[in-house]
């Protein structure tokens, strides 16, 4: 076991002191400020909903969201600059939340993604104005029955669900805590905090509301189902170790715990508790990252949810969930890596292959991107499995690169529309390159990044994770990864062929001219994609410095 402990210390820093048994509450507000700012803004948003007149709400909410997210991001930067990402990394809030490199890095990404996603949420030029008022892509009034009188009235009244902004802020708040959670309870609570708003957001599409609602139901039921598993896993781990703090469990697993009372000695002997508990918690997280076989919600939800939400969800959820997964595997279960690595190998391989293969026959852009996200989850898992510092930093880098490509891609999807709203069927995209070369070219850039073509961020990310995997002794994973990349390339290219080399259909969709909001979102996506592709060193450095977990 001492061997395991020494390996363990490779990627964790010892906390300054072990938490006491019943400590007096002590909260480091400054270090938790990113989360607090976002949640505060969310609460303010609720108040705005309650007290501001309808006309003013949109602008107030948008301002509040942007300011809140920007301020939180500034706080993250300040914390990182203050050394909390490296030498001052420690566990705050009574051992509940870690403030360390990976946490700050991922929080930064989540905040940026949230900020950019907020722009797409706020886009009001794509939908035709209702009753003279510009409207966004969210239901006029979510509670109304689709196709009913109430809905029609709500639309005529030009109502808008401005609640999406605070709801999104809540989700971001949860996502900030999720990768930083340093005990299992916080993990669970954070999971619910970001999941529940997402369920709601999924149901809020303005067009095709039946699909939207269906996706919400599915997401909700399956999400709740999975979190029940996660919670049961937490219970078992608690039963095994007598504690839910990561460090505590890690010590018990690693056999370095100092005081062993008789009860603990009893449960410690029962490895089944540990293994089953660990597996169930893992499953809960794999559900969120969309790994096979827990992926089946992904295509349905991605397709049904309003596209801005899909973009946000696809990017941010993945970042947060992989952050939590990394922390769990590297901080809590490193002593068990001989048990979980083979299993994770299998999951990664299956995920890469299934994602890539099933995507081949998809006919809907959003579903296609959903399967693509599954395949990418597999690639990232390959980096997660490396169990080296390089593995951590490569995953961090990949997440950063991937999330902006995803956001940008879904933002482009919002632009291609016909009378029925967004035209997501692939046949409708035929000849897009002829009619709107710029939009098609931008989408092509995103697709190429997904495909991992050099000089895009996708390549740098893929190279980073595969490199880490190879160095971590997972060469077969690299081979499978490469093969599934080849399969994946096929369907990305299919879309490009469709856009550029097919004759445009006469009654095909048009490309709406977006406001600067969406344009900014897309531009940021392209910029990050190219920047991280051509000159990734700075960000690799950043990820490398952030690659150490605190314990």
């Amino acid at each position: 076991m001492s061997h395991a402990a020494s390996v363990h210390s490779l990627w964790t820093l010892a906390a300054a002191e072990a938490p006491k048994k019943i400590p007096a509450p002590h909260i480091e507000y400054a270090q938790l400020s990113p989360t607090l700012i976002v949640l505060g803004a969310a609460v303010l948003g609720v108040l705005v909903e309650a007290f501001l007149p309808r006309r003013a709400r949109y602008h107030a909410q948008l301002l509040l969201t942007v300011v809140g997210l920007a301020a939180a991001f500034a706080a993250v930067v300040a914390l990182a600059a203050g050394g909390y990402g490296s030498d001052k990394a420690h566990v705050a809030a009574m051992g509940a939340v870690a403030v360390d490199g990976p946490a700050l890095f991922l929080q930064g990404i989540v905040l940026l993604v949230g900020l950019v996603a907020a722009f797409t949420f706020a886009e009001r030029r794509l939908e035709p104005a209702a009753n003279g008022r510009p409207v966004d892509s969210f239901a006029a009034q979510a509670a109304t029955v689709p196709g009913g009188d109430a809905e029609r009235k709500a639309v005529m009244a030009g109502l808008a669900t401005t609640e999406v902004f605070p709801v999104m802020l809540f989700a971001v708040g949860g996502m900030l805590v999720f990768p930083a959670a340093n005990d299992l309870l916080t993990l669970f609570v954070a999971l619910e905090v970001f999941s529940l708003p997402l369920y709601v957001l999924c149901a809020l599409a303005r067009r095709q509301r039946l699909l939207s609602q269906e996706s919400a139901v599915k997401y909700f039921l399956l999400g709740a189902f999975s979190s029940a598993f996660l919670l049961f896993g937490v219970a078992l781990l608690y039963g095994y170790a007598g504690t839910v703090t990561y460090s505590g469990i890690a010590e018990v697993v690693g056999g370095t715990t100092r005081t062993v009372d008789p009860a603990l000695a009893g449960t410690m002997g029962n490895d089944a508790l540990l293994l089953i508990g660990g597996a169930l918690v893992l499953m809960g997280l794999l559900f969120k990252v969309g790994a096979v076989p827990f992926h089946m919600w992904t295509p349905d939800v991605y397709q049904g949810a309003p596209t801005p939400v899909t973009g946000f969800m696809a990017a941010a959820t993945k970042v947060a969930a992989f952050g939590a997964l990394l922390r769990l595997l590297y901080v809590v279960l490193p002593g068990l890596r001989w048990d979980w690595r083979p299993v994770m190998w299998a999951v990664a391989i299956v995920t890469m292959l299934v994602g890539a293969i099933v995507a081949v026959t998809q006919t809907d852009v959003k579903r296609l991107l959903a399967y693509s996200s599954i395949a990418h989850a597999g690639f990232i898992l390959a980096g997660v499995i490396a169990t080296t510092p390089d593995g951590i930093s490569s995953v961090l880098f990949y997440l950063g690169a991937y999330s902006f490509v995803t956001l940008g891609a879904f933002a482009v999807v919002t632009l291609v529309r016909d009378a029925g709203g967004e035209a997501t069927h692939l046949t409708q995209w035929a000849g897009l390159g002829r009619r709107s070369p710029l939009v098609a070219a931008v989408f092509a850039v995103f697709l190429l990044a997904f495909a991992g073509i050099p000089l895009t961020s996708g390549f740098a990310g893929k190279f980073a994770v595969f490199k880490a995997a190879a160095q971590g002794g997972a060469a077969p994973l690299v081979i499978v990864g490469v093969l599934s990349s080849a399969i994946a390339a096929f369907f990305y290219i299919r879309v490009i062929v469709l856009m550029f080399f097919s004759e445009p259909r006469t009654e095909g969709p048009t490309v709406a001219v977006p406001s600067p909001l969406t344009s900014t979102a897309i531009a940021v996506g392209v910029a990050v994609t190219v920047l991280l592709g051509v000159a990734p060193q700075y960000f690799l450095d950043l990820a490398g410095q952030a690659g150490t977990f605190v314990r």
Partner: protein
Amino acid sequence: MENLIGLLVLVPLLGAGVLLCGGRRLDSSAPWIGTLLAALSFVIGAVLFAGMLGRDGEDRELGTTVFSWVPVGDFRADVGFQLDQLSMTFVLLITGVGSLIHLYSIGYMAHDERRRRFFGYLNLFLAAMLLLVVADNYLLLYVGWEGVGLASYLLIGFWQHKPSAATAAKKAFLVNRVGDVGLSIAIMLMFTTFGTFAFGPVLEGADRAGEGKLTAIGLVLLLAACGKSAQVPLQSWLGDAMEGPTPVSALIHAATMVTAGVYLITRSGAIFDGAPDAQTAVVTVGAVTLLFGAIVGCAKDDIKKALAGSTMSQIGYMILAAGLGPIGYAFAIMHLVTHGFFKAGLFLGAGSVMHGMNDEVDMRRYGGLRSYMPVTFVTFGLGYLAIIGFPGLSGFFSKDKIIEAAFAKGGTEGWILGGTALLGAAITAYYMTRVMILTFFGEKRWQPDAAGEPPHPHESPRTMTVPMIVLAFGSVFAGGLFSLNDAFLNWLEPVTGHAEGHSPVTAVQVTAATMVVLFVGVALAWAQYGRAPVPVTAPRGNVLVRAARRDLLQDDVNHIVLVRGGEHLTRSLVYLDHTVVDGVVNGTAASVGGLSGRMRRLQNGFARSYAVSMFGGAAVLVAATLLMRAV
């Protein structure tokens, strides 16, 4: 002096360049430019010859390296020239006959709108042929070798609008390419054996190399010679090559290019001397071809094709002689030169006849032309007498020597070869007499041409008759001149060496035998064609005749084995490429697609089945984790 050698090649090359790139404005002057440059190269050749005569036998060889051509590692190919007596002989023959034929072409091609190109190609041919004979290494020789092939290709197919001409040209090039493979391999073998392929070191070092290597080199050189010199089994192209304009047939496919194989073998004498097996192969090829060509020549009604068969046969004699080693080299070359004269003359005569007969080539539609075309008749007749070996004329001296040398080979081999050569002489007399009678004697069997125009035979213009007359002089006197004091033998000896064989029969006996078979041949032909009227359409004939008309079925064999087989092969490969090679890839893609379609159905839209998948996944995850621990 050395620099002149380069000039020799450069002058006609320049002509080719100027004429081919010159554009329309040169159209009218082209024939004269071409002829002038050919004559100029002849003058240069003559100057060189004079210079050579001015030196002693051993010092006559000139050599010069112009520049380093392909230097890669140990592989050093230079552009360098070597002019010795052997090369000189060829230079004079090529430029001399070449100039005459240029001159002839002025008249012959006077009405062809593309004559600028024609003369360009002819000049190109001269340049390549000269390069072939003055190169000082095998690789440069190879350049000339392929260069004449190219010129031959272009000229055979000169009337490209005729599909038959285009096909014949392609065939000639392809068959020659097969021979070229031999030459390439020979050069490679030389490089691996000697580390070089320059004549000097290779030939000097030949005796130090193993016999196996030499035999291999010899055999592939023979392959090369077979291709270029239309020897069995690569002879099939020569008959078809008669699709080209007649001056081309005279120059390239009778006098010069087709003898390149003889040059190659003679030049590589040192190699063959060390490889008796290869020599046996050479004489065998020569003997077979001399009969083959002669037999084919008997059956053809097309005057040019009959002459082509004859060319094949005569080159067979030369190859046979060359295969005999030092006994025969000089005679091979001597026959080559005399053959150059009389065969070119015969072809030019044939061209003249065709010129007067609306381009009719079928001898069965000639007859009685002697009075209409007296000059042609006389020159052709002299050529005829020369080729059948009428005493005193060129062919008599050279062919006789070869037959003698064949007997001198000794043993059974000598008897067989000598007998074959004699038999060949008889057949030669037969088919040449046949040509002569059918063309110039008997009644007129003229037929109107395709346009319904009856022929008005007439003598050809001066530009055509002059070369014929000059060549006739050569046909008559060259042989005697060469044999005077063994002049030719002594001239060539420093290069080829000479050895006397031990003939079981005396020279007089051989000559007597030759006379007898000659008489028999002529008599047979006269009996068949001179006495009885000749039908305009050929009778069916027996099996042998029919086979001989079809080049002894060689083309049919080629067609079935190579063409048909090749077509099948390529067609099945195209199919294979499409179905198997591409099919594997497309199949993989399709199976991924199929798998995708099947897996896609798992995503059936029912939340509960998703939950089942999750539950199952969780169960597997837990089980696997536990199992890992258990294992």
